[in-house]
């Protein structure tokens, strides 16, 4: 599709469509899910003791929240593949690194100690 076609579509009026703001839509649902995950994170912060399983769950929640924002709010789901891949991989790599940093903390300390 050309940019001109996109603009043509964008320029067409939405008169025949039902009012978008009257019902729950994908953006609303994304926001609600993000709120729930955030509150669950806060609950974990207040109640749970440190454990690898907790770290794993939190890492999953980071990856999930990042993916929701990238795909739905940032609208990268069908956008330029390179940008989408980089953005998505950021939220694969860092949750994994957070988990691995917990598992291999002694090795990281050893590796980064200057003797």
């Amino acid at each position, binding site marked *: *599709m050309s*940019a001109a*076609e*996109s*603009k043509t*579509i*964008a*320029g067409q*009026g*939405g008169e025949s*469509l039902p009012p*978008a703001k009257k*019902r729950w*839509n*994908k*953006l*609303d649902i994304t*926001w609600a899910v*993000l*709120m729930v995950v*955030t*509150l669950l*994170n*806060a609950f*974990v912060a*207040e109640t749970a003791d*440190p454990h690898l399983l*907790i*770290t794993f769950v*939190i890492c999953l*929640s*980071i990856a999930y*929240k*990042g993916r929701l*924002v*990238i*795909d*739905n*709010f*940032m*609208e*990268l*789901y*069908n*956008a*330029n593949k390179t*940008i989408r891949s980089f953005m998505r991989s*950021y*939220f694969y790599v*860092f949750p994994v*690194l*957070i988990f691995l*940093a*917990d598992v291999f*903390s*002694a090795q*990281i*300390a050893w590796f*980064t*100690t200057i003797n």
Partner: protein
Amino acid sequence: MSAITTDVFYLNGRGSVAQEPESLRRIPGNRAVWVGIFAELTEFAMFFIIYFIAKAHYPQEFEQGPLKLNTLAGTLNTVALISSSYFVAKAMFAIRQNRPRDSVRWLWGALLAGLAYLAIKTWEYQWNVSMGIHSDTNSFYTLYYYMTFNHLLHVGWASGTLLWAIFRVKQGVYNAENHSGMMAIACYWHMVDLAWIIIFPLLYVLR
């Protein structure tokens, strides 16, 4: 054009935001803003790597540190930023539907959420001081202040760009046919939200 119809386009935000034809296989906003976004994300990546190393060296400080922080403030900040990202996405939806007034309202909502973030963070810093938490208390709090203040600066100037977007929509420069500049601003704002999505659990949740 076969798979994408005008109806599908206007389902954007109701059905699937991913079906927005304008963004299909294209760079949202413009190239320049993505250079900026990746530069900022690289900067935050450096912070995160420093966090991993510091946590490995000072495990007790990083286990005790989050317990003394104000989790309510961190949670409220997350709520404010995610909500502001949502408002910006709604503003984009509205401008594509040729509803500039609605778009401006959503942008004001996003800006107010950004300002709420700044206010909450200021309150949190004051609360920290009253609790004896300073940037030189230990390595965890040094990183905490370094990361959160840097992020706060990003929220500050990104709020300025939202104000600019409001001005441009009101001027009629951003409209249904021309809004790539507004999309660039939106993408930058979402990046600021994305950085916080990692910072919040690192500093307030994980021990």
